[in-house]
């Protein structure tokens, strides 16, 4: 394992190998309250560089993973991992790393019991009222730590301690697209109908994943998200899901 200091006062990146076709940069921040801005800047840098032979650039929590094509790289993967990091360090020293503003995305959510199918049991388990749960869930600004599980599924955190709910012991066979769930410290939205074990507390009328759109997904890692409570009537007005009429 190799560590490189970015700049003296900055956090360091550790370089690890994920087998024979991916390298992982892990940032040492200690506590993880948000995605580290240096990691976000590094991700943007690698994405903008469009390095030949890099097939995927995946940011998640405290790591950036680059999936590479073996045939494109002659050298030891540690060497080219260092080369990329050095290029970033030089660019940031010379202030030529462009940092995009992080998106703040507002998601309308209807917390009606007909859509938030676990709401009733959840408030019993949490010993609070539905209004309290809605308030706690919607007043916080969440960070998208990564996308995974399904296309466009964003793992967001952290959920306030008072409304953290465990996953269902066995997953439901079908959770509807747009359903908003809680699992432990994380909250997320099902981008399509799928099996799922999260506790469903509401539903958004908007599309999270659209295979025909150019952006494909509503979220990307590093985005900030806020949920805005809406009533059932507005949900139906805004609804984009096929199963609701």
């Amino acid at each position: 394992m190799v560590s490189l200091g970015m700049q003296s006062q900055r956090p360091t990146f550790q370089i690890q190998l994920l087998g024979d076709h991916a390298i992982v940069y892990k940032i040492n921040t200690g506590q993880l309250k948000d995605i580290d801005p240096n990691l976000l800047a590094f991700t943007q840098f690698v994405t903008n560089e469009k390095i030949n032979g890099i097939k995927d650039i995946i940011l998640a929590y405290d790591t950036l993973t680059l999936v590479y094509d073996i045939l494109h790289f002659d050298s030891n993967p540690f060497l080219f991992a260092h080369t990329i990091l050095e290029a970033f360090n030089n660019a940031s020293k010379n202030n030529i790393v462009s940092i995009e503003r992080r998106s703040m995305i507002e998601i309308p959510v209807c917390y009606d019991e007909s859509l938030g199918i676990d709401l009733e049991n959840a408030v019993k388990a949490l010993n609070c009222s539905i209004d309290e749960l809605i308030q706690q869930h919607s007043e916080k600004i969440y960070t998208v730590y990564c996308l995974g599980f399904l296309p466009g599924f964003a793992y967001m955190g952290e959920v306030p301690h008072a409304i953290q709910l465990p996953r269902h012991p066995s997953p439901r066979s079908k959770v509807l697209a747009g359903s908003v769930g809680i699992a432990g410290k994380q909250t997320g939205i099902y981008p399509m109908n799928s099996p799922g074990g999260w506790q469903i507390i509401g539903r958004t009328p908007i599309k999270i994943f659209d295979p025909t759109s150019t952006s494909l997904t509503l979220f990307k890692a590093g985005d900030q998200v806020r949920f805005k409570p809406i009533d059932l009537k507005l949900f139906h007005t805004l609804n984009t899901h096929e199963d609701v009429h």
Partner: protein
Amino acid sequence: MKMSIKIIKKGLSDRIIDAGRYGFQHLGIQPSGPMDFLSAQLANTILDNDLNHPVFELHFPAAVFEFDEAMYICICGANFVPVINEKSVALNTPIHVYPKDQLSFLQPIEGRSCYLAFKGKLDESKKWLNSFSSFQTTLNKGDHFVIHKAPEIVLSINPFKQNTIQQVQKNLFNEHEIRFIPGPAWNDLDHASIQALMHKSFTIDAKSNRMGFLFNGPAIHLAAPKDYLSSAVTMGTIQLLPNGQIIVLMADHQTIGGYANLGQIILVDLPRLAQLNNQCPFKLSITNVQTAHQLYRSIQSWFMH
């Protein structure tokens, strides 16, 4: 000129794939490439196609195909006893089919993923995000694939292709350990588990599929319970489930994983793992990235004229 391949009968889980859809894993969109890239590449090599030309990946019981025009096809990988109009046909060779010919598969003899390549260009309408790999859909009865006919040529097996076929067959079906590079959680295992992973035999569980292969074998444990932050995973990532079972992520893997990451099966051994039948015991062994890269380069050289 257009021709088509039609699905007459649905199989258990068949699909069209190419080398996979890369560049979208950060959005949670998995590559969905082949389980066995060697057989897919071999089938294309035999037909003088690009290595990453789309092919059908079949699992037993496999679909029944009908061809509406004369064309060349090639079948590689698992031996499911292919027959055309009930007459048996060979693997690893160009096959000339005629209009109304039907291709079906009788029984699984060896391997678990079979590849059907065809000569001609698949219609672009089946493409999404630069790839033909099907996205969470399998072949259904009535599906048809429009193919733009390739110029008429006679295909044959030359010494170069003969060598490629032999090398691929040897790599896939000769007994060999499955090699891996230890990952971030390897040192979190207890001593007995490390010994078990290095010396004991495993088999593949019947519940395995394109998302992942579950291993049956000795239970594996961390020295002490530990939580891991989720990070990217790829095909071949060896994860430890909370119940002590190993799962190796395969072609339809999720893009992010939060279980203990014990290591990574090297690319050249993934096709052999992908073709292992459930009852075949196998062992794991440790290797390093330099060896893995050398092996991968030498394998890819089989496909280069």
